[in-house]
């Protein structure tokens, strides 16, 4: 997808509605839906831009998808857009989750309900993994070579998922190294551009 074929939301209201609809499809996490809707259906972002926004959203504190909503809203309509996108992401789901809380005590012990929740949890894990597989394609254009990208990806996974190291330290240690590597790889290209 080239950046030229991207579309734009026409108004803050469209942002609000789009993020509400998107959030309501996200059970056990909204990230998979966000990637599908924003990149593939609405085409407001390319896959590269999505990864870029997600990078920033993940290293900053706060819920990742809420940070993504804020940044996208802000890019199109400034802080009012950011607020519209975030409100869309949270308002209706908040009402629903409080409603479920009121119901929960009555149905928590029902085996079919507990089973359904377990099944939904299993699928939502799969949705995140599938989204990751899709975004791997965005690494092909990375200035770092493919084996280095693969090594960084595997190292991040091993440290967080298998060794359960604290995320802050993993991001700091791997991130600083990766950004330094990328910095060095970018150098010749930037120099060539400035000479021409």
């Amino acid at each position, binding site marked *: 997808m080239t950046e030229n074929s991207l579309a734009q939301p026409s108004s803050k209201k469209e942002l609000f509605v789009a993020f509400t609809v998107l959030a309501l499809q996200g*059970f056990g*996490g909204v990230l998979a839906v966000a990637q*599908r809707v924003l990149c593939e259906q609405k085409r407001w972002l390319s896959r590269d831009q999505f*990864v*870029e926004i*997600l*990078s*920033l*959203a*993940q290293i900053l504190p*706060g*819920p*990742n998808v*809420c940070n993504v909503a*804020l*940044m996208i809203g*802000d890019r199109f309509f400034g*802080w009012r857009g950011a607020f519209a996108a975030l409100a869309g992401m*949270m308002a*209706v*789901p*908040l009402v*629903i*989750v409080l409603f*479920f*809380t009121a119901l929960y005590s009555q149905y*928590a012990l029902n085996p*079919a*309900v507990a*089973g*359904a929740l377990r*099944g*939904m*949890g299993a*699928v*939502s*894990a*799969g949705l*995140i*993994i*599938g989204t990751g*597989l*899709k975004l791997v394609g965005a*690494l092909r254009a*990375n200035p770092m070579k493919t084996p280095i*990208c*693969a090594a*960084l*990806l595997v190292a*991040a996974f091993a440290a*967080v*998922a*298998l060794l359960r190291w604290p*995320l802050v330290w993993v*991001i700091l240690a791997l*991130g600083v190294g990766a*950004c*330094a590597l990328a910095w060095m790889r970018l*150098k010749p290209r*930037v120099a060539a551009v400035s000479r021409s």
Partner: protein
Amino acid sequence: MILSGALLALFGHFLVLSLLSIGGAITVAPDMHRVMVDQMGLLSDAQFNASIAIAQASPGPNVLFVAVMGYQAAGLAGVAATLFGIMLPSTTLALAAARWGHARREWRAVQAFKAGMAPIVIGLLFSTGWILSAQTPGWHHIIPTIVAALLVWRTRVHLLLLVGAGAFVGAMGWV
């Protein structure tokens, strides 16, 4: 009914936790447990665990588990204390950082950040999927997880259809 002083203390505590919540609010859940269950006695252990389970089963961002905790502790005033507390600082910081980075997107340092972080971010996505899957005991649930991952990757099947199928096989007791 708890005192407004306690609510204010809760709000203040969540403001601090917000700035520590790298990777999402769930990463500071252990500290919420320390404060709300052990220290202030606002929630029972069962209520605390149910908050996370309810939010995961509901549509919308997972951070709403924080609102469920506030609601169980002190009704809508509790929701205001926990949810605004956890959102305000991180939201402000995210907006400022995004603007700073976007205005300087041609800088080599910003491009190096973008390129360097991309593989790590994708590795973290796989980690999230792995951890979500590993918290369910047993192994049958791995099958719907793998099937869902492959379908999301390779097809355009509607995501709600996949979640609905997961709920169905779960309700039937197959996973």
